[in-house]
């Protein structure tokens, strides 16, 4: 479904991703763990088409298509979704208006206002959000937790095939984390894949991954099953650096 091969990415001339390869199959949940500065967020942003990153080498295909040939909106229509770590504030545009535009764009058909209203109510209930939330301007004045919930709400509304979640767990208290996890588990099924990018193992207690990868200095240095996450939690990232740090110097 998603295939990353030998990906190299730069920002302002600095190489951040240095030859990363990863394959995500249908229905699989992958966790990518790594310390700060390992290139996790760059990876998620570049997969979606962030304008400030430059891909210098490598390929990424999604559903057999070269994603670098596609605008971000075309990637979304194909079924990709990114839950942002720092979503933008868009003053004057209500959550409801934004979601209506997004859902109609992705589906390429207009839902009736009533259908849209019902869909939104249903998904907001899952995320334990006040209906009044839909009238607020997109991310403007939202707390950290509200922003994260809003990202997952968007995922539920758009029903992507692949969700990349960029540190969605960071800064959330345990209640919010459970709500976010419920949203993701709601999507879980043979046709939904996810890449959870995280610093901590905590979220993996609620969303169980099929594969865990450890990222260091722009590469995936080791991969394993969910037990790897536990080992990492126990031994810390220093252990990763000692074990794999030298291997990354080339």
């Amino acid at each position, binding site marked *: 479904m998603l295939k990353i091969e030998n990906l190299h990415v730069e920002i302002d001339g600095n190489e951040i991703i240095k030859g990363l390869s990863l394959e995500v199959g249908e229905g699989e949940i992958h966790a990518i763990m790594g310390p700060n500065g390992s290139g996790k967020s760059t990876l998620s942003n570049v997969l979606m088409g962030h*304008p400030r990153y430059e891909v210098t080498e490598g390929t990424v295909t999604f559903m057999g298509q070269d994603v670098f040939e596609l605008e*971000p909106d075309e990637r979304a229509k194909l079924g990709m979704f990114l839950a942002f770590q720092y979503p933008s504030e868009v*003053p004057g545009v209500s959550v409801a*208006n934004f979601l209506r535009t997004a859902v109609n764009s992705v589906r390429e058909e207009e839902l009736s206002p009533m259908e849209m209203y019902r869909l939104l109510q249903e998904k907001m209930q899952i995320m334990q959000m006040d209906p009044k939330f839909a009238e607020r301007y997109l991310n403007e004045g939202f707390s950290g937790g509200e922003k994260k919930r809003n990202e997952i709400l968007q995922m539920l509304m758009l029903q992507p095939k692949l969700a990349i979640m960029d540190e969605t767990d960071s800064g959330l208290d345990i209640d919010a984390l459970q709500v976010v996890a419920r949203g993701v588990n709601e999507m879980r099924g043979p046709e939904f894949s996810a890449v959870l990018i995280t610093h901590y193992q905590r979220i993996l207690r609620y969303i169980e991954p099929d594969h865990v990868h450890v990222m260091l200095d722009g590469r995936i240095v080791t991969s394993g099953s969910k037990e790897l996450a536990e080992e990492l939690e126990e031994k810390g990232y220093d252990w990763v650096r000692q074990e794999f740090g030298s291997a990354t110097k080339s």
Partner: protein
Amino acid sequence: MSPNNVPEILRSKGISAETVEALSSFKNEPGWLTEKRLEAWDFFEKIPMPTLRDEAWRYTDISDVRVEELAPYAPSPDATSEKDLPEAVQTLIKEGEENSALLVQHNSETALVRVAEELSRKGVVFTDLHTALKEHEGLIKEKLFGLVPMDYDKFAALNAAVNSGGSFLYVPRGVEVDVPIQSYYWLDVVGSIMPRTLVVLDEGASVTYIDEYASAYHEEPALSNGAVELYVGQGAHLRYVSLQNWERNVLHFNTIRSSTGKDATINSLVVSLGSQLSRTNVEAGLVAEGSDSEMLGMYFADSDQLLDHHTLQDHISSNAHSDLLYKGALRDESLAVFSGLIRVEPGAQKTDAYQTNRNLILGTDEAMAVSLPNLEIMADDVKCSHGSTTGQVDDVELFYLMSRGIPRKEAEKLVVFGFFGEVTSRVPFKGLKHKLDRAIEGKIGLGFEERVA
């Protein structure tokens, strides 16, 4: 008024004292008004045309404006009903706000006035200034030129000398008019129009009044030079909208000044979309305690348009409140100027005044927004703040919206609508809001997409 009756001198290029006299006599005006007009003309001739060296005109070059090459008066065909009006005007009316009274000025002449019977019964007067003079001379003599005097500036002097058509609205004490009253100014010849609006609200009256300017395109330049005087009596409430959407051959000058009595409220909205060059002065005089002025502004400049707004929140009395928000979008090689002043006169304690100007530049490095917020405070117990920002559409914000499947152009539209939403959401008129939305959509139009990409 058929064109044949209009004296030749009014339809010829150039203005002189003879033209001014001919106009006044053509309109059968009382002697005092002829005198005023002549005095204004004299003043106009005495003072020089503003140049870039004048502080108030530092960014607005009007050296191309040749008043002497324009005829001061352009006749229009008679209309007895809306069906006789030019089709474009009928469309404007259809797409406009629902109204309880309507005035159409076609070129320099009044083409149509319609007032709901109920309003007339309540004593509301709405007609052009010439007609109003016949029955309400006393009131007009007292108020006319009171807020926009001939010596306000060069253009005010010109308007005072040769204004024609225009509108007069009077709402008596305690009368509340629920449905807006609307004037359309339609220009379809090369020449100039000099409309003048005089609105007088007695104690406790309330009304919404809209001036809308539109035209048919011509190659040759045309001029619209207006003056608007808004008197809001004690406890009265006026909503005033000025919507400027001229074709690109028109140069637009307008001065809108209001005075609010004790506990009176004015909400003004000034929209500038059309014209080649547009200069609008909007001044609110808070002359009595408890008065309140909300000043909203919206402009969208494209190609090589120049849209210039000068505002004044003049706190003369204590315990008054004013809140200004002007938002503008710019694209292509356009220039927008905002110069705003909050002035708190000595003794105007407990003043509460805010001023915000925001500009959004769309996908170009060629457009320029000049924003000059100013405070002049001569009292010590006041709350005042001002702010100004100018920025580009953020590409990360666009990326965020696009990542949800929204195509670039739609995403841009959302951002721009969101930007103006802060103003339009404060406008309680469906028809007008719809009109503004469509105008913004038209302005975003083609070309923007390629520039951003």
